[in-house]
């Protein structure tokens, strides 16, 4: 695993009453929300998330963690992409433009990028000692897992790198924002389980046929856990580097409540240790190297 040079913590998080600039239903149940939050937008890094307080009262009580889908520090705006899962996201989807929404962030440790990759605009997250010239970034998304990928794709594309998006979903109705990636010049491949768009099957099928273009693939994966696990396993078999963005139930999002843990490998087994520890998805992640994660158990 490449060594990480820095890691971002919540030291730059802010609380904002963000004004809703627009709220758009892209496909049934999938929404894009654009918010004005200048201070927050300036601090974002690819792969981070915000906590969104959907109500002023007690229903729902807790904030919802939502990935930052795009940010523009100069314009002072950011966008979120979400699908309606229940009460909180349902309520969020009914908020009109002009209303304000309490959010805080940016939170968490986002995607790691090669040290020699600079984007010029945003401050970059945790750098790693891999060479971008020899690396092919491959973004792998499952359903709404597409949400945190555009800022990452933008960073790689701005640095002049080729990039690939492999996007899987149950059906065409769950494929959103593809044009954002094609507009950036990202090569997009789609797989749907029912064959209603792209090839029929799972995203792992696309990955198996990956054209490496003479480079070392670096996978950036976000989606449902079984998908993350399948991609991580394939990456492991082929010796590819792979980062995954995990999800867990969160309360604070700040590393304080310990509700969001995942099992992360440790090398203490030789000394009689159990070989894992509970890491916090909200502050040690959400992005982890796939080889750090204990997938079963």
């Amino acid at each position, binding site marked *: 695993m490449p060594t990480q040079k820095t890691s971002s913590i*919540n*030291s*730059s*998080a*802010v*609380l904002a009453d963000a004004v809703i600039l627009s709220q758009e239903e892209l496909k049934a149940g999938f929404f894009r929300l654009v918010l004005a939050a200048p201070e927050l937008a300036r601090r974002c890094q690819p792969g981070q998330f915000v906590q969104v*307080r959907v109500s002023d009262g*007690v*229903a*729902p*009580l*807790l*904030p919802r963690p939502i990935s930052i889908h795009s940010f523009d520090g100069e314009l002072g705006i950011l966008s979120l992409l979400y699908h309606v899962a229940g009460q909180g996201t349902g309520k969020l989807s009914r908020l009109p433009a002009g209303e304000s929404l*309490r959010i*805080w962030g940016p939170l968490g440790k986002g995607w790691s990028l090669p040290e020699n990759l600079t984007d010029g605009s945003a401050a970059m997250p945790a750098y790693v000692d891999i060479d971008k010239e020899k690396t092919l970034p491959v973004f792998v998304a499952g359903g709404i897992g597409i949400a945190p990928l555009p800022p990452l794709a933008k960073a790689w594309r701005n640095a002049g790198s080729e990039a690939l998006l492999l996007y899987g979903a149950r059906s065409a109705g769950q494929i959103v924002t593809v044009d954002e990636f094609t507009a950036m010049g990202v090569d997009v491949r789609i797989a749907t389980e029912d064959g209603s768009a792209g090839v029929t099957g799972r995203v792992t099928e696309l990955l198996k046929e990956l054209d490496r273009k003479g480079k070392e693939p670096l996978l950036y994966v976000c989606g449902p856990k079984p998908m993350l696990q399948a991609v991580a396993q394939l990456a492991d078999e082929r010796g590819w580097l792979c980062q995954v963005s995990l999800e*867990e*139930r*969160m*309360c*604070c999002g*700040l*590393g*304080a*409540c*310990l*509700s*969001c*843990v*995942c099992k992360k490998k440790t090398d203490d087994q030789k000394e009689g240790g159990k070989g894992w*520890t*509970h890491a916090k998805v909200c*502050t040690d992640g959400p992005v982890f190297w796939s080889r750090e994660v204990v997938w079963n158990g």
Partner: protein
Amino acid sequence: MGKLNLQVNLGGLAMKNPVTTASGTFGFGLEFAPFIDLARLGAIVVKGTTLEPREGNATPRMAETPAGMLNAIGLQNPGVDAFLRDYLPPLREIETPVIVNLSGNSVDDYGRLASILDGADSVAALEVNISCPNVKQGGIQFGTLPASAAAVTRSVRENTKKPVIVKLSPNVTDITEMARAVVDAGADALALINTLLGMDIDIRTRRPVLANIFGGLSGPAVKPVALRMIYQVHKAVKVPILGMGGIMNGQDAIAFLLAGATAIAVGTANFTNPRATMDILDGIGEYCIREGVRDVNELIGAAH
């Protein structure tokens, strides 16, 4: 009108104002530093600490409920040595007393923890958790039997000169019996309430939501229970009370003071608003000014 006095004394612990944080909801303090001025807090109560490190329970560890939440963290913590080495030093820089919440598997564990923490100058007081519903050992059984609650308290008392605050479990029939038992055993103050044992079931999977099956209920849903217990305990014993359970704003905090709390702790509200402690402190000040209260101590137990 003269200056408003917000200073209170919690069983020997002098606090610049009555606002503290509820253990387990505020990490080790610095997690909230981007949002609030930690030096404005009356005290910081940190995550429950045990002798050895603990990994806690399996996930899911949290579930939202109507006006509340269930948690089954299971006292995940780095252990007392790592706490003293890694987490306490940065807290020392802040002009706010640090209260350490401690838990053990046996009466002896509590005594050993107390003596270790007694040696740490920058620990201002100990909050003894005899009421965690989420660990099989060392949790609830100490907090539901007066004799064992008293034994734990005595063991801590004998091993520290610092103020001892005993945190009571609400999962009992008669809270005043527990309060009397620990006060007789040497508690300088009482903290209440810890979470109420509860559960939720996912009707789709037909399984309990939490991996641990049961969890502790906190948040606005528990406020009436907390107020009732504080009111009862204030009548029953003489020691000061650190009140908590569903405090979301300044008005809630005032109600706790009126019921008999000397200081209050903010828990679940930290999750809904990372500035909650500051807003609550401001709210207490605003109430006092509006109501012509010059000293916050006038409010303590005023509802009786």
